[in-house]
């Protein structure tokens, strides 16, 4: 069980999250939705320790990890995996080296790592032909699957997905969704998914909507389409009128 309590994050004078409270149930898939630029990725990166929160708590199995030293955090986050929005594959390494980077860096020989990589490759439905290809030779969907295989090699108990189907066509998106769902069921993973893709609700257990730095809705995925929460109603139907304002350009967009 992961508890996020009053989590706040500020970059210079801008508050990104203003007090997020969220309970992520173990062994379930929780989807976090929200407008672009609302801080969903920042929230996920705080969960895995890539960004330090300004204040608040992240409680993992009863222990608050906020404020802990890196080496202390490590033992709590060791079973966390992260799948990046654009896969974040190491572009100077081939698929084998990308998936096997962790054991290879820990000193395992390529000969010993190869069968593990092959197993993980088949887990994400990729053929062995891709083993020695470089990221630049892969399609977007393949990159995401390699990214997932790289995460799975660490045997995570919790996987955080940052917009796993962004930029993919509907068919590939569906394939990725099913893959995530299969992983979830097969390994009993706790999954947290950031997405704009409402089709993800078909596989999710819980849905949270992040707006204006706080969670405006948290409920069952199965009943979300019947929700009368005005934020959810507008967001999942993609309506331009409602309590959620149209996206404003951020300072970075000006460039």
């Amino acid at each position, binding site marked *: 069980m992961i508890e996020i309590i009053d989590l706040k994050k500020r970059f210079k004078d801008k508050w990104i999250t203003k007090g997020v409270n969220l309970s992520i149930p173990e062994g379930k898939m929780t989807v976090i939705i929200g407008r672009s630029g609302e801080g969903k990725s920042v929230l996920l990166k705080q969960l895995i320790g890539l960004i330090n929160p300004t204040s608040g708590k992240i409680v993992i199995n009863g222990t608050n990890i906020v404020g802990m030293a890196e080496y202390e955090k490590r033992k709590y986050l060791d079973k966390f995996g992260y799948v990046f929005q654009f896969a974040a594959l*190491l572009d100077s390494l081939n698929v084998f080296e990308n998936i096997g980077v962790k054991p290879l860096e820990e000193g395992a020989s390529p000969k010993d790592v190869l069968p593990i990589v092959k197993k993980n490759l088949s887990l994400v439905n990729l053929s062995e032909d891709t083993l020695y290809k470089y990221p630049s030779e892969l399609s977007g969907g393949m990159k995401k699957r390699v990214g997932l295989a790289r995460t799975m090699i660490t045997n995570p108990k919790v996987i955080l997905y940052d917009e796993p189907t962004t930029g993919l066509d509907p068919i590939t998106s569906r394939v990725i969704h099913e893959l995530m769902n299969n992983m979830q069921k097969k390994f009993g993973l706790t999954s947290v998914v950031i997405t704009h893709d409402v089709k993800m609700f078909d596989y999710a257990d819980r849905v949270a909507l992040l707006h204006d730095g706080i969670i405006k809705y948290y409920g069952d995925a199965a009943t979300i389409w019947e929700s009368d929460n005005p934020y959810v109603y507008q967001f999942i139907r993609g309506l331009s009128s409602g309590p959620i304002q149209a996206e404003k350009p951020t300072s970075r967009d000006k460039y």
Partner: protein
Amino acid sequence: MVIKIINFFGNKFLNLCESLGRFVFFLGKVIATLFTTRLKLSKLFVQMFRIGTGSLTVAILTGVSTGMAFALQTYIGFRRVGGEHFIGTIVALGMIRELGPILTGLMVTGRAGSAITAEIGTMRITEQIDALRTLRINIFQYLMVPRVLAGAIILPFLVLFTMICGIIGGYVVCIYALGLSPEEYISGIRMYVEMKDIWGGLVKSSVFGFILTWVGTYKGYRTYGGARGVGASTTQSVVTASIMILITNYFLTKILETL
């Protein structure tokens, strides 16, 4: 108005202190990682190969052109006082003690230091470094230490090439263009160039190699803001490392002279 001015300069000063702190802290982490974790020898050799082979042509060209021009300039000046037989000594000492290390340091900064910043900076903005961190891979052990160490080890070898090529360049100009005898050129070098001159030049080179890779990796690691950020970091890396090399050169010369 006064408060605004104080605020402005105060903020600038605090930002400068913060940047310097980060810069030194980064170096501290590199050194701590070097002594507390296993050195990835294969990665070290790859980096040495990349910096070395990538910059070898630059080092040779720098040596040859500097040696030739230096010999010509020295000849023009020394002919007036009848000191042509000292040209070999001056060219050799100049190349070994000063021009070889500093010019190669600056050239390799432009060639390899910028490449290191661009590579790590791109890894930063494309979340490759974050990916390594989520896999609990020590990025200092994986990325920074091999590069910084490779710079410190390989630059003296490159400078050795620059020194030799500079002396040969000077020789070619003196013998074939200015009509000096080979004995005149070489005897001065044999007589006045000492081993400690060579060691001094190589120590300087190693420090310059360390500086350019330290700055290169740090600027790459601190890259933000897309392609524009990578460009800005790369420029900053070359400028900062060059300035640091120039400043350090004076103090190193002074220190080495007293040893």
